[in-house]
């Protein structure tokens, strides 16, 4: 008998291939030409536009929308990519509802913003589908640069450096480049291998080599890179995951949400990917939402997301929360994990309700249990194996200005660096800005 959502334990194939294909299809498909024109017509071409201010990469949104409206989406793409070389991915994964679209004057006016994210995707997809890479390299400078991490920050930095005529070698711990774009984004936001297609497209600039399987502190060292290259950019993200710090955290089937999401992204045949009947996700950010939603989509009978603080404090946007609940995820706020119960593997999780007290979050003494075959930790990631000599700040590499670290000729950006919002788009901006700073520094001499 085939598995079903009610099959006990952790099993694969709770849903058939057709159902899974439908559930994991593109959550927000590319607008067609007509839809794009209608959407573009709603833009008021604001002065000093709020959307542009809200964009971490400062894309000239009114200009690119006007370019779409006037029948030149390729020019629109150029406007986007000038500021954000991963504009295609950002169009898919940016929480636009808390960035550009939140401040759109038509949100103010009618509660319905211009669909900036979808228009951005229309423009960038149009250009990329045509196979056009609109940038070329400046005259070779003879400088060689090392980038650690082939995620959004590293790729953005590498592209900008290559554009300025430098040669760039990108090192990544994984064999496959992309970082969180490839391993950390919910599948339905990046279908059809988009992350790899975007990287292939980005690399058309030339002058960028990517070396996989190169973990910093293992195959490569910062000292070694500093000796070999003219400058180094660190953008390796956060490899470590915070533990729950409760009794039973080490029981079976209590795992990191990021690993589940990465496995899911790398799985060709989702009918072979096991998921629990009762899944509990601990956390309140995007990773928690992505793990919870995808567990439901895979066929888990019940998925409960438990966050220790109030709803207002959740890092995941309201849009993301609504997405989760619309897919059948139950969200419980103000409850913290007490212990993992089970004989070997998890069977139940016990929580205690919380409230905001004078000294911060405090337990109420009221507890409850949830059945759980599978528990995902999603309470944040941490920097692991930071090279010696780098000053840290709040557990991350301390940076000033455009990603300058405490070491000369070493820059850092993305999630591993201090500051920022841990968003793809922020990482892209930091990589780009560091590249400009590196370029300026190198050309000083």
């Amino acid at each position, binding site marked *: 008998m085939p598995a079903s959502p009610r099959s006990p334990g952790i099993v694969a194939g709770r849903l058939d291939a057709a159902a899974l294909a439908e559930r994991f299809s593109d959550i927000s498909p590319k607008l067609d030409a007509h839809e794009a*024109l*209608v959407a573009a*017509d*709603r833009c*008021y*071409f*604001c*002065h*000093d*536009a*709020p959307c542009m201010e809200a964009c971490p990469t400062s894309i000239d949104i009114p200009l690119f929308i006007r370019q779409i409206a006037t029948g030149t989406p390729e020019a629109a793409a150029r406007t986007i990519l000038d500021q954000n070389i991963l504009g295609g991915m950002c169009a898919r994964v940016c929480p636009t509802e808390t960035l550009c679209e939140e401040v759109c*004057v*038509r949100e*103010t*006016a009618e509660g319905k913003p211009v669909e900036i994210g979808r228009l951005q995707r229309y423009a960038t997809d149009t250009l990329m589908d045509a196979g056009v890479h609109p940038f070329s390299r400046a005259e070779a400078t003879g400088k060689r640069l090392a980038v650690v991490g082939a995620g959004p920050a590293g790729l953005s930095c590498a592209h900008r450096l290559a554009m300025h005529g430098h040669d760039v070698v990108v090192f990544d711990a994984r064999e496959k480049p992309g970082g969180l774009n490839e391993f950390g984004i919910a599948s339905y936001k990046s279908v059809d291998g988009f992350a790899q297609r975007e990287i292939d497209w980005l690399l058309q600039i030339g002058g960028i080599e990517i070396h996989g399987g190169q973990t910093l502190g293992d195959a490569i060292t910062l000292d070694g890179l500093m000796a070999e290259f003219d400058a180094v950019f660190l953008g390796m993200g956060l490899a470590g995951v915070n533990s729950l710090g409760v009794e039973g955290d080490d029981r079976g089937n209590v795992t990191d949400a990021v690993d589940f999401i990465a496995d899911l992204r790398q799985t060709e045949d989702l009918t072979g990917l096991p998921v629990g009947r009762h899944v509990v996700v601990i956390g309140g950010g995007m990773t928690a939402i992505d793990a919870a939603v995808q567990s439901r989509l895979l066929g888990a009978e019940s998925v409960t997301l438990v966050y220790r603080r109030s709803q207002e404090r959740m890092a995941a946007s309201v849009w993301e929360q609504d997405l989760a609940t619309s897919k059948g995820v139950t969200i419980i706020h103000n409850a913290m994990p007490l212990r993992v119960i089970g004989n070997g593997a998890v069977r139940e999780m016990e929580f205690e309700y919380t409230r905001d007290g004078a000294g911060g979050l405090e337990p109420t003494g009221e507890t409850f249990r949830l059945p759980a075959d599978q528990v995902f930790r999603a309470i944040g990631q941490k920097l692991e194996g930071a090279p010696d000599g780098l000053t840290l700040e709040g557990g991350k590499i301390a940076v000033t200005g455009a990603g300058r670290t405490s070491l000369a000729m070493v820059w850092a950006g993305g999630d591993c660096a201090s500051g920022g919002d841990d968003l793809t788009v922020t990482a892209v901006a930091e990589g780009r800005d560091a590249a400009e700073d590196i370029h300026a520094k190198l050309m000083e001499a």
Partner: protein
Amino acid sequence: MADLRTEFVGVKSPNPFWLASAPPTDKEYNVRRAFEAGWGGVVWKTLGLDPHVVNVNGPRYGAVWGADRRLLGLNNIELITDRPLETNLREIKAVKRDWPDRAMIVSLMVPCDEESWKFILPLVEETGADAVELNFGCPHGMSERGMGSAVGQVPEYIEMVTRWCKANTRMPVFVKLTPNITDIRHPARAAKAGGADAVSLINTINSITSVNLDLFAPEPTIDGKGSHGGYCGPAVKPIALNMVGEIARDPETAGLPISGIGGITTWRDAAEFIALGAGSVQVCTAAMTYGFKVVQEMISGLNQWMDDKGHADMDAICGRAVPNISDWQYLNLNYVAKAKINQDLCISCGRCFAACEDTSHQAIAMNPGRVFEVKDDECVACNLCVNVCPVEGCITMEPMTPGETDPRTGKVVEKDYANWTTHPNNPMAKAAE
């Protein structure tokens, strides 16, 4: 409920909304549908002599669009009816017989000789039509053959042909004017001199709506070539309103009945034409864009507005705005207004700021938090901010009260009227006195 019944030069209709002479009124089928939808009358598409004309077999229309592809302007290169005269006459008679309460006006265009007019007028009379409208307006195709606007551009011809028609029919004669002239008053005066019972205006405006950038040819394009067409639709309304107003206030033509035409799309447009002196209005592009049902909004809207304002019937509104059309030189220079931004309605798009800062008087401040405020000491009340603001009613022009000091000029706002004719900067001021 206001009384929308209209009597225009003796032609009665249940409302002032007529379909203009154009494709919507080319056939019995269309006109019956129009009457079923509620139109008060039609001007049947222009009849000519047999053999009937032919049309191009490629595209006839070109367009200009606004946001969301809203059709703002339409141009056409279609000619007068391309069906036999007898067919049209038979259909006109049949429709008029079945719809006796609706206005049935027949548009005519025949060569510029009296015989042609003497020939066709009795045939039309025999259909039972209420009036004829002389098409001196079409600017394309027929004008190359000495008809349409070729007549309408020469006041002497207008007068001559009008006189022929008045002499050869008992039906009221309307003269449809072309806007492709320098001063609309001259053809209107000529029509009146020839004995016209009314003028209808405007006909379409010479236009090329667009150029195909692959073919480098005007659109609509026929086998790689394009010809100018006649432009109509919402975009031409301001031009039409001005021409209607000019005729209404010209002492030589004052009182000459006017059937207003040009971009009428809503009840409000129609009311504006009527206020400027139109006794009936004619619509084409709105019907061609949205279908005949659009008249139902026009009827309900005009009704509601008239009821709200206490206007009992058409006479209560017709021409009411005419006395308020003035020459620039008589506008009150002591009237001072200032723009005012309603912060509750403002959505902070900043278009007013961009417009004022870049192209006007630097009279809007962009304050922290995207708060836009008018600088009264710079504002000349030009109204550009009002016009570019996407939120209706957000920016208004507030008149200053006499006795207040205008912070821009430092002068006290006078309560007395004063215009350019007496202004000290006017070199002609003395001569004018």
